């Protein structure tokens, strides 16, 4: 929970420039990692029998870090903070939901419709603005422009060649990326002519290529031309249709990389190379093994041997820092990491989208929307297929969309509308149960003694 509040303040800073600082903050602080001052403040609070949210304690300690302050002074500060905190608490019966919905909906009119290039990464197009916000709220299966941000383990992060190597491994390459195709109509053959230059760049060998092709469906037993540097696919029977079909299969066969990741772009951010990808595949990426050894093996044999001698354990170090992988595909996060992660992703994506448009919306509103969407353990959309279609009140559902179906169904299952919500009560014409409508004060004149 805490990490979200943090990430927001840090995201602000990130816009200014300081990326590494942000990264530092994403590491969840454990109990033991709290500073002495924070512990002292918490202890004092306990003594005073009062409560403050962690974020306030952190901020106070940030300000006072390194300055000597007496306990009595600290207590004075804390007492004041507690007083203010209690003043700032939200009132019971506040219609938090409506305020949240308005706060997110109202700036919608001020947003743009177009997709833009993502801050800094000019090569990758990302849906932003209103369409993106709608996408998040709709809980779509996949965003229209899925994207991932892959960080390298810190000790390798400044190595451009290594980053390039990793990004080449992640990016999907089809056969056409490394070779050209020649269809021999006369002999009913398809020749694959690898481009050695590009092969090297992508890190594919001819053997590897052959292997991939022979494993792909429809081409299994057709591969020939063992010794030469071309691969030939022979069509068993003379048929143009089959020839064409096979050449298409060959063309599109994936040589390497992760499914769905069509492009990977490198970008230097504060002394660190970060890989941005077009397309997202969190699940495969998280189980993708890339060790330092395998990198050296293919790039620098000498160094590989050297390290293998001196510090062999270093070779098995993973190149990708999997704790820092991000994707904008919420559904993927949900299926790989679970609801809590999905909730955080919704909050983060929504606030990023709003912030990018220069609109300030309090994070609490976004949190409420995210919590509502993920309340029952799965990600539900805001709309008739999600939350609105599952309201407990028949009248509220009928008033939103698909009126007749809801009414007809209610009749046969004998539904009872308890008139707890807003829409229902407006329909029957009584005060709603929020805000001042939630309290009932009855004046009973006292009996005269």
């Amino acid at each position: 929970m805490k990490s979200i509040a943090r990430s927001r303040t840090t995201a602000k800073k990130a816009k200014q420039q300081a990326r590494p600082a942000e990264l530092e903050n994403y590491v969840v602080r454990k109990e033991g990692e709290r500073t002495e001052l924070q512990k002292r403040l918490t202890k004092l609070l306990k003594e005073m029998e009062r409560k403050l949210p962690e974020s306030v304690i952190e901020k106070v300690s940030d300000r006072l870090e390194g300055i000597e302050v007496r306990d009595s002074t600290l207590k004075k500060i804390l007492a004041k903070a507690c007083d203010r905190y209690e003043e700032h608490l939200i009132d019971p019966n506040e219609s938090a939901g409506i305020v949240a919905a308005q706060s997110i909906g109202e700036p919608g009119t001020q947003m743009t419709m177009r997709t833009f290039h993502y801050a800094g990464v000019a090569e990758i197009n990302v849906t932003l603005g209103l369409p993106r916000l709608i996408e998040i709220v709709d809980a779509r299966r996949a965003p229209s422009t899925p994207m991932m941000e892959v960080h390298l383990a810190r000790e390798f992060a400044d190595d451009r060649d290594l980053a390039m190597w990793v990004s080449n491994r992640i990016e999907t390459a089809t056969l056409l990326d490394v070779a050209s195709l020649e269809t021999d109509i006369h002999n009913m053959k398809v020749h694959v002519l690898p481009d050695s230059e590009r092969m090297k760049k992508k890190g594919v060998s001819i053997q590897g290529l052959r292997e991939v092709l022979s494993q792909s469906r429809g081409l299994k037993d057709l591969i020939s031309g063992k010794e030469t540097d071309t691969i030939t696919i022979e069509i068993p029977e003379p048929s143009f249709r089959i020839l064409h079909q096979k050449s298409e299969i060959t063309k599109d066969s994936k040589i390497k990389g992760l499914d769905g990741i069509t492009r990977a772009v490198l970008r230097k951010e504060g002394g660190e190379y970060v890989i941005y990808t077009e397309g997202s595949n969190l699940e495969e990426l998280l189980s993708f093994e890339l060790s330092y050894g395998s990198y050296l093996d293919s790039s620098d044999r000498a160094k590989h041997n050297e390290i293998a001698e001196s510090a062999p354990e270093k070779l098995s170090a993973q190149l990708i820092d999997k704790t820092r992988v991000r994707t904008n595909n919420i559904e993927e996060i949900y299926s790989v990491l679970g609801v809590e992660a999905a909730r955080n992703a919704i909050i983060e994506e929504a606030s990023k989208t709003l912030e990018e448009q220069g609109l300030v919306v309090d994070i609490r509103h976004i949190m409420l929307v995210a919590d509502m969407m993920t309340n029952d353990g799965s990600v539900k959309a805001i709309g008739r297929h999600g939350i609105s279609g599952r309201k407990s009140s028949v009248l509220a559902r009928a008033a939103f969309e698909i009126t007749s179906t809801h009414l007809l169904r209610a009749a046969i299952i004998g539904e009872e509308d308890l008139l707890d919500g807003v829409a229902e009560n407006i329909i029957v014409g009584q005060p709603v149960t929020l805000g001042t409508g939630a309290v009932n004060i009855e004046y009973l004149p006292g009996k005269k003694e």
Partner: protein
Amino acid sequence: MIARGVSKRISSIRFALLSPEEIRKMSAVKIITADTYDDDGFPIDMGLMDLHLGVIEPGLRCKTCGRKVDECPGHFGHIDLAMNVIHVGYVKEIKKLLDATCRKCGRLLLTKEQTDEFKKSLERVEEFGGDVADLGLVTKETVREAASKAVCPHCGATRTKITLDKPTSFREEGHKLTPKEVRERLERIPDADLIPLGLDPRVCRPEWMVLTALPVPPVTVRPSITLESGDRSEDDLTHKLVDVLRINQRLRENRDAGAPQLIVEDLWELLQYHVTTYFDNQTSGLPPARHRSGRPLKTLVQRLKGKEGRFRSNLSGKRVNFSARTVISPDPLISINEVGVPVEAARELTIPFTASPYNMDALKEMIRRGPEPLAVIGEGKSRYLPGVNYVIRPDGRRIKVTDKNSEQVAEMLELNFVVERHLTDGDIVLFNRQPSLHRMSMMGHQVRVMPGKTFRLSLSVCPPYNADFDGDEMNLHVLQSEEARAEAKVLMKVQEHVLSPRFGGPVIGAIHDHITGAFLLTYMNSLFTKEEVMIILSTVKNHRELPKPMMTDKAGREMWSGKQLFSLILPATLSMAFKSSICVNCEPCLYEKCEYDAYVRIKDGNFEVGTMDEKAVGAFKGKVIDKLARDYGSDVVREFIDNVTKLSIASIMVRGFTTGIADEDIPSDGKNRIAESLEKAVARVNELVRQYKTGELEQMPGRSMEETLEVEVMKVLGRARDGAGDIAGQYLGMENPAVIMAKCGARGSMLNLSQMAGCIGQQAVRGERLSRGYWNRTLPHFKQGDLGAEARGFVKHSYKDGLTPTEFFFHSMGGREGIVDTAVRTSRSGYMQRRLINALEDIKVTEDRTVRNTADSIVQVLYGEDGIDPSRSIQGDAVDVDGILIEALGDEAQILAKIDEKRASAYATLEMDMMEGQEEEEAEEVDYDIGEGDEQ
């Protein structure tokens, strides 16, 4: 009127299916004839307009309840259908039931164990708070399981395949199942087997889904209208019922006469069609029933459904009385809390007062004044006084007060009479502007009755309403109960909404000229003579005492500084420091010694250095307003905002301020420099194009050659525009009114100015240079394949220079995109907001500060993870830590100093703009409804 003291509440509504018995039992009359009226225009007995069904004509009495129009709610009748007919709304349900039950014995095709299993899982879902959709999933599973059985586990009969021929006929292994047979089968299903199928046998027997009797709605539901010509025009429902009756009659006759099977079946199907369309005239697979004119009839489902349907139009949205709507216009002299109401409107809008011993005399006095009192205060001047329009006696009779009977009525007044008094100064009303996107779109104002025919409102409340005065209209609602007025006063008054719950900053504050005025008053060493000071201060109420003049000038006149004057409206205890809008973010910041006077410091209510501009007093950004609203409360902010408005206006008028296109004049050498730099840029573009064509252009990684060229060209031209702007900027100094407005945040931006004085720049559609139009070119003025700057939408000229025809065309293309974008955006975001509101409307913070929905399940354990109200938060933070430190450490200066030192280094990152200045655009009013077309 609301009945006082009644505290009844509908606690719940239960839905159920009508059984044929019930339909007949509640029926007031059985309808048999398709005719409605006889030749005299009198309703025919047992016809569709039978007087037992209620009355719609004045003068007649209902034969069922004996009451007159408006008193009689109407009564249902019924039609006995000659043959059974399937209810369209339930065909899918019937199909499910037929599939899941035995054809012979009618039992659910599941063993007892399985049945119990499914029953249990239903109970489990219910226990864990599953909603209707979840229950639906379980029953669906039950049906699937049962439908997969080949043999009935109870009687051993084999299962036959039943198919549904849309919309309403069933087929069993090729044979048509008549509705009668369907009904018989449904009858055989025992009650106990219905529960796992999701039906509640207490409210719904499945055979009721096949109709034997049709309820006829009361005439009040389907009133006929008498046209001017005297002809009667019947409601769509009546038309449809006539059809049903007619066919029903024919079917009965034919059947009884023993007509051939074929004819009976045809008629039966026709009856089914009419009943189907009577329910839903948009059933897929059926041609909609049409009116004589060809218009499709609006039958039951159509009446309920959609935006114009009963639910959204009449039940969720209600019409109100005691409201007014007119054009708005500005009045800088009234408070933000007030609204100017025209006399005409005030005389029409009333507030009810119940006579009591305490107000008797006052009410009598008001009644005596009659409906149009005017207090003359000499020399043709008059003052508005509230009068009375109606007096309501406790028995409900309304007495209209006229000039003639006013005296009489006043004498008649007794306890518990209700007097409807005119609106008068100080009454609290609700004021609203659509679209009502947030709660600040409807706020409480105090009335000020004024001459004129428009609502007047303070300019500072325009931002939350998003109002301007180009013809905007607004609505006003007069509250009718004491509770409502109290609530409005405490919760809805404008001053309570200075801070937005969206981001915890101010949404009400100075705009446009008021910012310019504040700027002119306080910028640098502005000085004012005693006379000017008097003029300015005379407009302001409740200011602090004028201090000694700052200096005397050469002529010996006493001069006061603008900063001194501004201090007078600040609370004496206010201390704060921040950077103004005019700040240029120089490094390092000189703070108090800022050469631009951009660092504001206020100490103990004394405005020492800096300039009051948008960052200080503007709506959305005003830090002073923010601070006052937070620390001093709503009354103080309200007064401050009102005073800033008046002070600014007075000072802008003393100083004088005007702007025009001449402000963008730049000397000819400036023009030449701009032209020169633009020429260079165009040449550079041509060079890039040449490189591209010869292939010399260096390709960017991850980009094609074309993309590379576009990026490069855009870069060059973007820089060229900025360059032109910069050159123009050099000739436009801080003494230029347009620049003043742009810099202090009043209106416009430096970009706007550079487009007027320098160069408009590249026009774009979808973020790219213009490329479409003709074959390989944008306009026939250019050669095919021309990729140069001019041919692809670069506008070299400025607005002031004027555009060439091609430039003008390109500019329109860019402009059109913006317009389309706005139109699309409003409808999209409107629908998104409707969905958001609908999904979240029931969520509230409970007394234990958990956030719950109506099902009482917890959505958040602590609101927003820290329980803080966003509108009370300090830019999202729970408490103002820095402020607290300063307060708490007041006597420990050395610690404070250390903190200051630490903070100074981080200052630049803490400073964040609250909100970007938005271009004002008036969106066309659009239908917010998308996504409903694909209903069901």
